[in-house]
């Protein structure tokens, strides 16, 4: 491949002034770093998972606690992702298509979960819903349990994963402007019809991509969930929390077996994302041609 690119490389050398040695060194550093920091850990997960044999691996996965953690993780993702789909689309729509006061403030607010450490986010919810808060006793009287229960985990996960979909959609919607929507409205289409027939199809690939990222994070979130969950085995443990408990119990092989589940999920997400990106790039290019 380097032979094919030779003429271009020579031109580049002139333009940037880097010798082939420098380039090889830079590439080497990048590859070593990538291998050490990304690929090696991923391999270790799978190697460790099978270190005690296939039987132990299957046993670890079939454990009731693992099963309930998996169920909880899926349940949380199944609530958090659709919720953020609605919130994210609404926020992106409002920001990209309308002018209003406090717009830049709203944009900053959307980034808040990215900026704040997840542990802090978790603590915020403890302060908000805990026994010592103003809300705590009220909720208690009504018999609603949020902290150390599924609702708390869901709320923390929604908070942490909120930016993914909105952030994906805002630049896309802004780039597309509102003229297609205006055309639809002037042709007699109502708000919903315009949204589902015009706005949504124009952002569908970006939306799908955002949903994937949101889902990956919802299933993998540790910090915030750890603070609000209370670590009740078989009740409020999600997969990441379950892995930590197994590891702390000196059940490394089992911990890695469960971890391999999450890792596979991540790999599938990445694969789908890559496929989408190829597709996405094509449709974006077509729009630009238009």
């Amino acid at each position, binding site marked *: 491949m380097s032979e094919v690119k030779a003429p271009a490389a020579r031109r580049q050398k002139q333009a940037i002034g880097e010798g082939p040695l420098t380039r090889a060194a830079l590439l080497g550093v990048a590859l070593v770093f990538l291998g050490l920091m990304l690929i090696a850990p991923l391999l270790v997960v799978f190697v460790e998972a099978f270190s005690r044999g296939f039987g132990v691996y299957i046993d670890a996965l079939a454990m009731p606690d693992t099963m309930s953690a998996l169920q909880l993780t899926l349940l949380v993702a199944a609530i958090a992702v659709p919720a953020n789909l609605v919130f994210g689309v609404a926020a992106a729509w409002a920001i990209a298509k309308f002018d209003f006061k406090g717009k830049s403030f709203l944009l900053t607010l959307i980034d808040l979960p990215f900026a704040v450490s997840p542990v802090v986010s978790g603590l915020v919810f403890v302060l908000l819903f805990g026994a010592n808060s103003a809300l705590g006793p009220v909720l208690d009287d009504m018999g609603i349990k949020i902290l150390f229960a599924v609702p708390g985990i869901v709320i923390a996960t929604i908070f942490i994963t909120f930016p993914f979909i909105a952030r994906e959609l805002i630049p896309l919607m802004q780039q597309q402007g509102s*003229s297609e929507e205006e*055309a639809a409205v*002037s042709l007699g*289409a109502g708000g919903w019809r315009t949204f589902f027939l015009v706005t949504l199809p*124009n952002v569908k690939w970006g939306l799908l991509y955002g949903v994937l990222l949101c889902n990956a994070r919802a299933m993998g979130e540790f910090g915030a969930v750890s603070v609000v969950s209370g670590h009740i085995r078989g009740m409020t443990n999600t997969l990441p929390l379950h892995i930590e408990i197994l590891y702390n119990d000196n059940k490394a092989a089992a911990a890695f077996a469960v971890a391999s589940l999450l890792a596979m999920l991540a790999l599938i997400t990445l694969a789908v994302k890559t496929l989408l990106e190829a597709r996405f790039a094509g449709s974006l290019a077509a729009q630009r041609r238009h």
Partner: protein
Amino acid sequence: MQVRAENISKNYASMAALDDVSLTVQSGELVALLGPSGSGKTTLLRTIAGLETPDSGVVYFNDRDAAESRIQDRGVGFVFQHYALFKHMRVMDNIAFGLRARRKNKPKEADIKNKVMELLDLVQLSGLEKRFPSQLSGGQRQRVALARALAIEPSVLLLDEPFGALDARVRKDLRRWLREIHERTGHTTLFVTHDQEEALELADRVVVMSKGKIEQSATPDEIYDTPATPFVFSFIGESSVIPVVVGNGRATLDERLIDLQVGNLPDGPAQLFLRPEDVAMVTDGGPGIPGLVVSTRRIGGNRRVTMECGLARHRIEFDAPAEVPIANSQRLQVRIIGGRVYGAGEEGYETEKLAASATSDFKWAKAEGWLDR
């Protein structure tokens, strides 16, 4: 449907995009909104469509306040400057969109199909119904946009620079074709353009805008022959401007009388606006304004001559027959046989033709004594 905009004002961040604009488009009329970029044409069009809310003023559709109905119910066919076709829909679905969106008496799918085919035929795009917008040329997209707007049988058709993004040839064809469609369908039509040729050729009436105000609203002939303001004069067609002095109902250039009625302008400095045909070369040795040829260029069968005249070396342009040889730096006499004089306070439209002649390659020395003839 008659459309009436009354006293519309619209401000953007303290800048007035529309300043107390009133405009009426009679039923079945084809009106052009003409003005330079930024004069508020798009804003006015969007306000009529309901896509923009005016700060003050009312839009009436047949004496009914349009603000009382939703945009969806105004029945406005809007053709956007950049078409705004639905990218992910085929041509046929683009055109059918408005019919399918109808709540009351929504036509049957078979009728929609027929209507779409009819419209495709009208805009001469039969056979392309399965294409996506990205697979069409600019002119074809424009026609899809028009068919889509016509599909809802609009009470008014609004077009924003419909041919703005197309090349000159396609523009000319589409222009003629739009006129034909208008004659066939009879829609009340208002279209925006910054191209005066397009406006004069196509429209029943031309409304000239500048800086958020209407300068003149008249037939193409009146706009060309009796421009109401210096702006309209200089925006329409070719023009030269020279400062003159008005006294006793007569205009003089460097104390030389110009044989022009100036109406009831007050005495004092004024501006004489000339079109090329308002200036004739003196060939019989009679009296005239002397000048020096700066440049010449061929325009069709004529030669367009740029000449500097008067003490301040004002540039004027006129046409001479191509067979008369005229060289640069040649001295000539011209006679002013037309043109209009406007008071000095009124503003014209800045073009490079009006640029000060200080940058010219005029050789003053060569003109020694030329005022004495």
